[in-house]
């Protein structure tokens, strides 16, 4: 029972309390770049969720079955993780193209963008730093990805409204996106006390 509560805690913590974009600032490029378009944000959200979970599983196995038993972790971790994630994204792309063209059309164009997204690599480092077990890692990955999805939807929705409103000259362009994220982050600070 305590294990399940622990899982729930990890989920809430990774999704809202330590929201990957608003509290930890990972994946900002795609967050600022894609959110002026609602459907692109949704496509990116699905693709990120999918790849994050896969990457968490694969890098957990590599970390615990190869790097830690052979004492390679401190100096081979970065190189092996980034290469594994890069090739994983390539494989997923080829597989989707062949097996389900519709799904590929929906998220295919976002997959190459993900390979260099610091969010995916960040989640795998966090998992390895906190020494989570296998199930906990998957929960952490799902929570983080959903947190990313949620932040993308929030900002995309607000920016869609902003297009029809009159902004002060100073804040036109990208600037207002940062200001809105700052205010959203202030709101998310309210979750801070939830998890001890």
């Amino acid at each position, binding site marked *: 029972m305590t294990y399940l509560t622990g899982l729930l805690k990890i989920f809430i913590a990774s999704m809202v309390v330590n929201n990957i974009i608003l509290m930890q*600032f990972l994946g*900002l490029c795609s967050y600022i770049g894609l959110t002026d378009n609602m459907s692109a944000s949704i496509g990116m959200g699905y693709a990120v969720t999918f790849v994050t979970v896969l990457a968490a599983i694969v890098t957990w196995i590599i970390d615990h079955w190869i790097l830690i038993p052979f004492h390679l972790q401190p100096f081979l971790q970065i*190189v092996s993780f980034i*290469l594994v994630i890069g090739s994983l994204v390539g494989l997923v792309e080829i597989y989707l193209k062949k097996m389900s063209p519709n799904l590929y059309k929906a998220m295919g164009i976002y997959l190459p963008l993900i390979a260099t997204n610091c969010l995916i690599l*960040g989640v795998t480092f966090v998992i390895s730093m906190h020494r989570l077990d296998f199930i906990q890692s998957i929960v952490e990955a799902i929570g983080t990805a959903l947190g990313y999805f949620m932040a993308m939807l929030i900002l995309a929705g607000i920016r869609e409204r902003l297009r029809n409103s009159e902004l002060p000259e*100073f804040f036109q362009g990208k600037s207002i996106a940062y200001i809105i994220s700052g205010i959203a*982050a202030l709101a998310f600070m309210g979750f801070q006390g939830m998890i001890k």
Partner: protein
Amino acid sequence: MKKLKIIWNGIVPSNPVLILAIGLCSVVAVTNFVQNALLMSFVFSFVLILSEVIVSAIRKWVPDEIRVPIFVVVIATFTTIAALLSHAYFPAVYDAIKLYILLVVVNCIIIGRAEAFAYKNGIFDSLLDGIGMSIGYSWVIVAIAVIRELFGNGTIAGLRVMPQAFQPALVMILPPAGFLVLGVLVGWLEWSLRKREAKK
């Protein structure tokens, strides 16, 4: 003269953070205290300069199709060295920003410069470009960090500057202010660029 221009180019005209607006994750995250920003600048400069030199040195033997994975391996090697070095010499600061130091490996600025400059130019020019870009990155993040720490904590790099009566605005060292300060900075920059265009 031309060589100086390569360095100057990274400091202002195509400053990686302010003008090109790439690699922003670490900019927002590590600027809450000046020490964090200084360590981050050191790691970033170390990785960028050495990767550019190495990529430029091996560029004739790198096949075009697999150049990006090779760049990534070079960058990852230097990131590992920098992370281990800073863990050994600055353990307290390293613990505070560990995640962002490890993530230098996917920093868009470094991969971008390796691809756009070092892969096409000689070793000495790449070295100069690396130095220029590093200075350009470092002065921006240290400047933001000074603003945030001064108003959020009343100190600069741990030394008390503001008088005792100064009431620190705590929000400045919390995560949201990273977005707010960057938003104002970007807004000011775009606004002044637009104004200059309009004058012409």
